[in-house]
């Protein structure tokens, strides 16, 4: 379980080594999430059209270690963009990855950039 989690570390925008092309913007439905595969990682990507932002985080829910977060619903808590896990509705900030339910769980987040209708996710590997 630790091994699974250890694959996922937050990547800061200025540390990105590899901008991975995940697809065309049109592959990513508005105001919801999808999952992409990068090497052995599963990354959830959200096209938060309502606020014109894109977010990416691990697809693995740290609560029960299932690959489900891309299927969670997005929204905001007092302006903080968030995702709710479809299994037990734990919510996480899409900006910091931190749990918004008062527990210690945390998600790794990844930078996203859009260029010429292409969606890129930033990695350090």
């Amino acid at each position, binding site marked *: *379980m630790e091994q*699974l989690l250890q694959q996922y570390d937050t990547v800061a925008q200025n540390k990105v080594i590899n901008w991975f092309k*995940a*697809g065309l913007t049109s*592959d*990513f*439905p*508005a*105001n*919801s999430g*999808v*999952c*992409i*595969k990068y090497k*052995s990682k*599963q990354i959830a*990507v959200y096209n*938060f059209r*309502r*606020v014109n932002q894109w977010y990416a985080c691990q697809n*693995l829910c740290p*609560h*029960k*270690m*299932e*690959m*489900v977060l891309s*299927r*969670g*619903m*997005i*929204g*905001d*808590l*007092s*302006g903080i*963009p*968030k995702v*709710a896990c*479809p*299994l037990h*509705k734990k*919510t996480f900030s899409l900006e910091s990855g931190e749990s918004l339910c*008062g*527990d*210690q*769980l945390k998600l790794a987040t990844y930078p996203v950039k859009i260029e010429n209708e292409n969606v890129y996710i930033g990695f350090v590997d």
Partner: protein
Amino acid sequence: MKKLIVIGNGMVGYKYCEKLVNSNRSDEFEITVFGEESRPAYDRVHLSEYMSEKSAEQLLLAPTNWYKENNITLHTSSLVSQVDPQNKQITTYKNEIFQYDSLVFATGSSAFIPPINGLEKKGVFVYRTLEDLDAIKSYANQLKKQGRNEAVVLGGGLLGLEAANAAKALGLNTHVVEFAPRLMPRQLDKAGSNLLVSKIQELGIEVLLEKSTKTILGDSSINGLEFSDESQLKSDILIISAGIRPRDELAKAAGITVGERGGIQVDEKMQTSEKDVYAIGEVALYNQSIYGLVAPGYDMAKVAVAQLLQEYETTMDAHIDLSTQLKLIGTEVGSFGNPFISDHSVSVITYENKLKGIYKRINVSKDGHKLYGGILVGDTSDYNTLFQLYNNSMKLPENPEDLILGSRGSNTGSAGNILELPDTAQVCSCESVNKGQICGLVEDGSCNSLSEVIDKTKATTGCEGCKPMVSELVEVTLKSLGKQVKKDICEHFSFNRQELYDLIKINKVTTFEQAIELFGSGSGCETCKPLLASLFSSIYMETANKQVEIQDSNDRFLANIQRNGTYSVVPRVAGGEITPEKLISLGEVAQKFNLYTKITGGQRIDMFGAQLHELPLIWEELIEAGFESGHAYGKSLRTVKSCVGSTWCRFGMHESVSFAIEIENRYRGLRSPHKLKGGVSGCIRECAEARGKDFGLIAVEGGWNLYVCGNGGANPKHAILLAEQLDEQTCIKYLDRFLMYYIRTAAPLMRTAAWLEKLDGGIDYLKKVVIEDSLSLATELEQEMQSLVNRYQCEWKQAIEDPQMIKRFKHFVNSDQSDDNLSFVPLRDQKMPRAWR
């Protein structure tokens, strides 16, 4: 600055810090806390939830950074090994020395271990800390792998029963062994205990009374117990829960006075024999007793903080209440005041119903004016009321027996109005919050909702037993002030569901985006999005394919997500009637996709373990075979259960299967505030359990009786008779009106039973609306329902026919691979998800 040291960071030690911080005078002290356990204080009362749903983090009373933020230095994993009151210093196990001006013992207690031979054997545990539970869990798992699963819990008190429940939940075959002739000997009399024994045995836990354990058998690990009567019992694991022993060892060694049978002696100021040294919680011996409950511990914390702050008038009450409710064991037990008292000045009133498994006892003064205490087993719904009457020495109703029998012949509750309680009535005993405080905060406008009251007072955050009462007090007070009890759905919409329903309909709003622009703010969330999705569907009969992004995860993929992220598939089998051909096709599909199959409680077949990308493929075949969506994933009509009725059954009065199919097909796809279930029985033997459903029909001489607002599930309720001897057409007319009225007015996620309970005027009012058309709405309701019925479409058919829609059923957008994190293990002749990691 004065130095304050607290030894022990358990529930009461934490509460002490919290009260000090809340006094706003904590900056007068340099506060250092030592806790032996590896984690900061957690909620021991809810420890058993760690066995099932809660993580250690969720049980923490405050996160680690709380201590830092409030300038409290917390040393976890730090046992204090010596206290030296002469030099006002303590020593830790690492030989570090710290000075203090004031010292607080909050060292709690440890499990009492009775003298038995063989305690050193492997497989013997106590039940007190998170570490204990971890150890029990992992030992139980090892045992199960070896095919061993006999568990014994020593002690049939409150904690022992809780431990037994936990052992049972771990899949162990569990026995409870009690020395006394009764279970919960401190709380129950013989009759109450007898009933509890039979209830617990029904849960599959064996009970042995009057057994004194002599020896733990086995070589290096336990394999059995021997009792003093020489009988033996097989046991692979033993959990000892035979009482508590105050942890007074430090104090004793330091020359501080302790009681003969343990516990640090304190006075009403929580002061020990040593100046500036206090003791609180389970280690404190007050009035010759140790109190193994949080509520008195929290009171002690309050007093000790006040004394530290030189508010000398705050002292401990002489009388300490030990009323308790047992939680978690699957049966209700409560005991308050003096449950046993039975001398000549007392009348004991008891009520026993063995069939229903209820026993109630109250001890009332001979003149019938005063309640001394009592016992409730099997039904504790009157606990709060009785406890208040007792605790406030309130005058009892004319016939005190009404308190436990209900006042026969009239509809009004027996114990009177909640507002009649005196202001000093303690409502939340864990946090000692009284009625006056709660109502006061609402009256002076500081709080406008239950959650604000909870935030301010912390009421309900302990054992939660007082929650119904606090919530009622808030609601009644708000109402008495003429304030509406606002039930905003979430931070994005300051409306309730009914208001939004009307707004959307009147303004002809058709999308979530429009709705949030017009009536809301922010971006929405997992509460308002599915709620609006449901409203759009109830108003326009749109399927979940239209606004995919606001559907709850299950509706978004038209299937129920399972514990490993795969899905279950449940096609509709209206009325439970299915042809052999269709059964065969279901079998073939399940076989082809390797799905686990099971007959559901709703008379249909569930196929589990389908991956996201397989869903459309599976449905293509099912639709080909003549199936349609069963909406098992939606807050919508589920099933209309039937019995065979007059077609086959020798007692059947009418054709219940045909009617059930007709009704199920009429309302299929209908989305509602919560799920809807129906039942149709062919005679009063009621084999379709129609009265356990949101609506039920039972065939009688001359037609059908229509029952509404029943519920199975967490709070079972029998449906109530709405109308008798109806013909089929009238049944449907009334059902249309009833369902549509419910859809319009219920709160989100409120089943019909709960809705009726909240409906002013209850069933009589509902009868007026549905039968007499008192609101002149009947035609409108019927027309609305008919138009929804006319617009029904199978959303799975819609989805697989549209290549655009089908795109969402893919695990990765950038790859055709499937989820590599999935794995299954064999289960009998099928499969199941591997356990959670």
